[in-house]
């Protein structure tokens, strides 16, 4: 018993002070891309050509990246001779609509807005998630799982992963939705009592990820269910996922700072 207490003392209190402060991200972290179209050479499309998931289109205002398809890999950055695309440390990426998942040089990035007043009344202080892994590589699951550890302590925000869809308020879906998982996913959704939400986590669940061309999958959760929150990445950093969940619950406005209900 004593050695357990000693370990407890040695290991210390380690829950991250988020959201009061943002935990440090590694120098090479690849967050929301920044685009500098003024550097684009005339007629160059090297970035779009290099993108394996066809996430980049070239517009009059410069390259436009669909962050739903983006794997946040360095392909486009390395392909560009002029450094017109670079990754930033910006971890906030979640949106409420598929169309908002755009990185371009014009317009502001529309981060996820909070639920409407009625849904907020129901879910604002307690949101139970049922995670469904529907294809994919288990990478997103790794970083969703992490939120349950004492470092992130998801429970302190009133958010919890539950075992049964009957106990759930929302489905959190990872993976491109394989044909082999479609029926199970639909049945799980039907088993969740209404009102209910759907959260798509990761490039696969948003647009099929690296498998977007495969006929074995359906191209993401939205092909099967109405999606209320999109959290991009491959996989998204735990901080990105948590930011999205808290925004949906109206707990983060603008900057990351929020008040935690007592």
């Amino acid at each position, binding site marked *: 018993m004593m050695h357990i207490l000693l370990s407890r003392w040695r290991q210390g209190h380690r829950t991250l002070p988020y959201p009061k402060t943002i935990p440090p991200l590694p120098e090479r972290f690849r967050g929301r891309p920044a685009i500098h179209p003024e550097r684009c050479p005339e007629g160059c499309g090297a970035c779009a050509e290099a993108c394996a998931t066809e996430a980049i289109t070239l517009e009059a205002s410069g390259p436009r990246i669909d962050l739903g398809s983006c794997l946040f890999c360095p392909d486009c950055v390395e392909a560009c001779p002029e450094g017109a695309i670079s990754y930033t440390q910006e971890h906030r990426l979640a949106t409420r609509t598929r169309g908002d998942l755009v990185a371009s040089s014009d317009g502001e990035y529309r981060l996820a807005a909070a639920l409407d007043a009625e849904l907020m009344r129901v879910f604002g202080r307690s949101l139970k998630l049922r995670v469904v892994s529907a294809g994919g590589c288990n990478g997103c699951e790794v970083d969703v799982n992490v939120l349950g550890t004492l470092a992130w302590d998801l429970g302190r925000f009133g958010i919890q992963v539950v075992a049964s869809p009957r106990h759930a308020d929302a489905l959190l879906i990872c993976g491109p939705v394989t044909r082999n998982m479609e029926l199970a996913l639909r049945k799980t959704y039907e088993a969740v009592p209404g009102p209910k939400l759907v959260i798509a986590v990761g490039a696969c669940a948003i647009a099929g990820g690296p*498998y977007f061309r495969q006929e074995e999958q359906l191209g993401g959760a939205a092909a099967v269910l109405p999606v209320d929150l999109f959290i991009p990445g491959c996989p998204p950093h735990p901080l990105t996922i948590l930011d999205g969940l808290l925004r949906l619950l109206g707990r983060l406005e603008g900057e990351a700072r929020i008040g935690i209900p007592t």
Partner: protein
Amino acid sequence: MSPTALLVLRNGQAAPLREVPDLPPAAFREAVLEGVRDGRRLACLCAESDRRLIAVLADDGAGTLHVARTRLDEPRYPSLTPDCPQAHLFERELAEQFGIVPEGHPWFKPVRSHRPWNGAADPWDRPADLPPAVMDFYRVAGDEVHEVAVGPVHAGVIEPGHFRFQCHGETVFHLEIALGYQHRGIERALVGGPHPLTFKMAETAAGDTTIAHAWAHCRVLEGLSGVQVPARADRVRGVALELERMANHVGDLGALSGDVGFLPTAAFCGRIRGDWLNLSAEGCGSRLGRDWLRPGGLRQDLDPLRAERMLPRVGRSWLETRDAVELLWGAASVMIRFDAAGRLDPVQAREIGLVGVAARACGIDRDVRRDHPFGPYGAHPVKVALAQSGNVHSRAWVRWEELAASTAFLSAALEDLAGSPGDPKPDPLPPLAPERLCVALTEGWRGEVLHLGITDTAGRFARYKLVDPSFHNWFGLALALRGEQVSDFPLCNKSFNLSYCGHDL
């Protein structure tokens, strides 16, 4: 037919396809069976288009891979499985992929629930869009026997799979596992490559094993294009692989602790695992090691300054890991549960071709890093961990010893990297040589990862085969459950912690 007639390769070595002996079907069969009788291991058995079979036998003692091919006249042949249980899932897989029927297979069922790629007739004559696990399961008859069905959607943040238990009271007589829910068609998509998505698919075959799969893939490409990787880059790859092992082993030990209700280690390890993942992110920006490697070398080098910064973090994380995990061995309530659950018979384990942590926990002394050394492991060997009991305790203990061995590797490697200048970025690979074959093995944290590439006349992949360690090991979990309580399934399952997506591809 003597096994010496097979083509002998080293791990990662390529050879012209014409040098692979093309045996008549009967001689092929005899060569595989004789090799296995002589103590070799069926590392891979797969089909190609044109009714070809290819087998890779690993001789772990000699560090060699023995390869043979055959061409069948008909889409059927006498099954190897009755004489060689290691072949059982491979034969089901090649039947599903290419419509080739291994006649006399004792448990002939689909693996992933998809149609044959080549348009061949479906061996099971299934209706289109039949979901996985819609089939007859092995059943035990009797008034007092009941069946428990679990999945595909499980309680928790975990991948989908269906488990069917035949139970007598609490006791499990038999467990049958039906997978395929994560099947997204990776192998089919790799044919005709390499293309821009190839590397990403290799990395995401199993996301928690990114480095082991990416490395095996890189070595296939490097073998087929005749490129030598600089020693320093290989050392960095070793750092990436051992960090992946640390994170996953720490996570598993914490989860095992949680499954027996011992919360201190569960809580500590959950957090410490994140520290190891963050070290990978320090190296390459991604906690899972995405885009760290690249064919020919590294995509992101560990420059001396970065290695120097990581070194004390490795030391600190190891001290905390040790402090958290050592609690397990002193807790009687943990030990009694670990010792009593999930014993797998070593003889059976050998017969079914178990690999990795689960094999070493049965006293089967195999580890690719030593037996088929690749990258830095020839010059910088790691100590291979072994345990004898084949139960949950042994599987936990092997992980624990591997944590210490990997930390030693990491510390030495980072120290050397901190004192040596970084490599320039590797040049893009030259085109792959046509009509060649290359087999590459790595030792991921679960066990042996095998990638096999065969190029066509244009230097594109005519066949690309991946074998995740889970493919060998799922049947081991089913065997370990026999005679256990059904309530111990989570504990036994976690002690193997196999990949669904790595199996389903």
